[in-house]
């Protein structure tokens, strides 16, 4: 005997669904990252291309194998692992040995994402977790920079790129200092124009502010990126720097130098906006971004390191649940928490 046909279908909320699916957003973020990556390859040549390829491949393969190991359906089709891999690659120095890049990709996915339960459960931006572990493990390698626009960048690789796995790299003699490093240790400020168009040493993708801004604007226009996060971070960093620069112009750099140097653009536009690791409500987002902005300034000015965007964002990720808890919207039809207490 068959069951009578159900005439009433019962579903739990949410009943209204956005037509935009996770993989659509993720795919668009990848599109937005491609020009940044392409420009990075133009600046640093083959080395940058290999770093980006290896980090993306490592991230995607790790995601695939961990899914199989957990008897789950592979989730590489949602594009999120590609983003993690690309973002990680963009934060690394171009001449980093490729085995370190691969380790970073594996760590980013395994430790930054799967340990917490996969996409949607990660409390930290996975790419930054990967980079933080690399930074703590190989402090010398990850702060050895390679100059941009070398003439033979498309025909030859830096000697360090193809280091044997788990071996110490041998560095080329032509290394350079980042603008932030020069500012911190030698008090030399780079020209803003060069920074804006990306013609300076640094990580693979933290160089051209202009392209990052354009790509970010595209995502924001398609409503796939919360524009409040980068805008608040820029405002807080610029505001605080302007105050300190006003007080003591010799010790502190100008606001435009702070905005366009280092990984601030990339971090604020593509990493702080990680949908899982940032708060949901608008007030929450503002507080979260302000915390990141203040941390960036504090680390860059008074910390031991020249660059602090990565740690600032990880810190923001860590306090994001706290912010969410303290700025909770009132549930419709209930009295406010204060009144109840």
């Amino acid at each position: 005997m068959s069951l009578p046909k159900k005439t009433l279908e019962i579903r739990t909320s949410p009943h209204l669904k956005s037509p935009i699916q996770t993989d659509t957003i993720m795919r668009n973020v990848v599109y937005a990252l491609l020009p940044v990556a392409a420009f990075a390859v133009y600046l640093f040549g083959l080395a940058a291309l290999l770093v980006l390829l290896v980090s993306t491949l490592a991230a995607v393969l790790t995601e695939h194998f961990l899914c199989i190991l957990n008897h789950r359906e592979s989730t590489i089709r949602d594009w999120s692992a590609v983003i993690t891999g690309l973002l990680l690659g963009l934060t690394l120095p171009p001449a980093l040995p490729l085995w370190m890049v691969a380790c970073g990709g594996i760590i980013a996915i395994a430790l930054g994402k799967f340990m917490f339960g996969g996409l949607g459960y990660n409390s930290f931006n996975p790419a930054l977790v990967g980079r933080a572990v690399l930074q703590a493990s190989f402090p010398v390698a990850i702060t050895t920079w390679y100059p941009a626009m070398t003439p033979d960048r498309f025909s030859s690789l830096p000697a360090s790129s193809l280091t044997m796995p788990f071996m110490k790299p041998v560095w080329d003699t032509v290394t350079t200092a980042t603008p932030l490093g020069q500012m911190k240790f030698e008090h030399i400020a780079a020209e803003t124009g060069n920074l804006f168009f990306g013609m300076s040493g640094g990580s693979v993708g933290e160089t051209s502010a202009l392209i990052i801004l354009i790509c970010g604007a595209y995502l924001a226009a398609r409503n796939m990126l919360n524009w409040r996060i980068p805008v608040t971070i820029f405002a807080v960093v610029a505001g605080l720097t302007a105050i300190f620069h006003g007080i003591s112009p010799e010790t502190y750099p100008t606001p435009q130098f702070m905005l366009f140097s280092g990984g601030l653009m990339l971090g604020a536009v593509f990493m702080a906006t990680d949908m899982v690791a940032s708060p949901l409500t608008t007030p929450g987002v503002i507080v979260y971004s302000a915390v990141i902005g203040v941390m960036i300034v504090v680390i860059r000015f008074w910390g031991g390191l020249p660059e602090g965007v990565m740690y600032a964002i990880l810190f923001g990720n860590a306090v994001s649940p706290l912010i969410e808890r303290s700025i909770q919207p009132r549930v419709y039809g209930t009295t406010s928490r204060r009144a109840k207490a």
Partner: protein
Amino acid sequence: MNTDPAHLSTNEFIKGLWRENPIFVQVLGMCPALAVTNSVINAIAMGLATTFVLIMSSMLVSSLRSFIPKQVRIASYILIIATFVTVAEYFIQAISIELHKNLGAFIALIVVNCLILGRAEAFASKNTIWPAFLDAAGMGLGFTFALICLGGVRELIGNGTLLGYMIFSENYQPWIVMILPGGGFFSLGAWLLLFNWMKSRKERLNLAAENSH
């Protein structure tokens, strides 16, 4: 169940080594386990110092158990433990100044290792000296074993050496994070993962064996 005395006392000794391992199963005494296991030699020194304190205080607590009223038992245990920690600290200093420097404040912090107070309260105060000694020795050696496991992984990956001997080639790139505090958490997490995986596999196998009967 085998109940002859010899078997029981072996059991008191064995349980701390594996089945009730203080670090991997009970997850006790995390502070030294994370802080001083950045090399095998530090791990061994810390483990043996803790074992010494554990054995001596367990035996003293056990022998004084009818003399100590229950209202002041915790105070008495802490007094006894602190005494042996101080004794251990003097001995370590006499053996090697460098070792004493490496272990630093963590020798004094053996006092607050909950493993020691836990064994005094849960076991030594209810048993005669011989079982208390076996229990403490087993727990202490289990603790030392766990610290060596942690220290081994951290020193090998973080420095490329074991007990100071080069294991990999001269050109091995050390993962410095492993000898920093973060590495303590990573290796502890990995070991706990391994132990829990082995436990759940054993349970699954037992269940399968039962079902097949």
